[in-house]
């Protein structure tokens, strides 16, 4: 009976592991944390979410509206700072190059009024940010959301609209968002959902 267990050379296995690990680390894309938890509803749709040229409207369960837009297909396009600049012009707010750069790099969707945007971009304090995050104003008196959509479409005509809503958002808010999108001639858009397959009886309707 052997007293010592045999030695196994683990080097090839470790090599393989390292390779796979590097592969998965490099290919995985981390979706940034949304400012509020969003529990999206289910659907049977199997169409994957597009990666670029998207603007996302996030509706949280407490009926706040967040907005997010990507930088375009290439990082050289710099759509985000251009959009913010236009928004600033509209509301007579001058953004410094540093603020524009910060906005460009900001990964998650934002839910702040344009008047609070400067403060929001210049603070690192998560608590202050949370207080400022009251949702993008969408009512007819101060329809900043509409202008975000307008300038986004102006800067990037190829943009697609996506709506990511929590299942418990009340319908009147959804209706309001749809109305604003329609007002700005966005009539084709997508709802972000989770996949849940459904099988329907092939014989068709009962009997």
């Amino acid at each position: 009976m052997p007293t010592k267990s045999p030695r196994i050379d683990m080097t090839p296995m470790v090599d393989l592991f390292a390779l796979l690990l590097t592969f998965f680390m490099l290919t995985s894309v981390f979706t940034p944390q949304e400012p509020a938890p969003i529990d999206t509803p289910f659907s049977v749709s199997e169409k994957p979410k597009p990666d670029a040229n998207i603007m996302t409207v996030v509706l949280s369960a407490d009926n706040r509206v967040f907005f997010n837009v990507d930088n375009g297909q290439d990082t050289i396009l710099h759509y985000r700072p251009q959009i913010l600049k236009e928004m600033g012009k509209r509301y007579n707010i001058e953004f410094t190059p540093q603020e524009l750069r910060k906005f460009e790099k900001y990964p998650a969707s934002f839910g702040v009024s344009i008047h609070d945007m400067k403060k929001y971009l210049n603070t690192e304090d998560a608590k202050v940010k949370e207080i400022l995050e009251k949702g993008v104003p969408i009512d007819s008196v101060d329809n900043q959301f509409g202008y975000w959509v307008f300038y986004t479409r102006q800067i990037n005509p190829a943009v697609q609209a996506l709506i990511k809503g929590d299942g418990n958002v009340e319908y009147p808010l959804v209706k309001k968002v749809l109305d604003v999108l329609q007002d700005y001639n966005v009539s084709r858009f997508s709802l972000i959902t989770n996949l849940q397959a459904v099988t329907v009886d092939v014989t068709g309707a009962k009997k």
Partner: protein
Amino acid sequence: MDMTPMVDLMCLLLTFFMLVGAFNKPKVMEIVLPDKIKKDQKVDPPKIAESRTLNIILGPDDKVFWYGGKADATSQPPLFETNFSATGIREVLLDRNKALFDKIVQFKNDVKTGKLDIKQDSLANAIRQLKKEDDTGPIVLIKAYKTSKYKDFVDIIDEMSIVGIATYILVDINYVEQGMVEAKLGLSRTTAPLTQK
């Protein structure tokens, strides 16, 4: 040198990244709304056969109401209550959309069994064509009562694609329908009639 701890750690990280990669795939559901009619534009409302119209009203607490035909102040058809289960609104829709649904299922089966030889991307086109030609299925008007949720909205549009409804449209709920829903729910009227303003 003992490599076991390192291998353990790598194994763990590898599993983590594999799972993150696999579970992080959100899907999208596309909808197209008709262009809004400008205020100064005069457009005749499209003529819809009353017998083909199916009105679906989304209610609170995952309730769904439906009625056929048209409701106005003088005559109100009976309002039925159902839900989003497989035997709920789907059965109502399937019953009315049977002709088109069977056609789509038949077509998909033919493709699957090799009777018909077409490319995958022309399958979607062919189904779209089938939907376009259909003239017996229901025209579904989707309306939402004010306390309904976004979830219901997604569910009902999902139902449309499951059952293969050719024509559906989002419409604002009107006063008469609000009254019908409130009566069914046993609520007192929360909105004043327009004439009393």
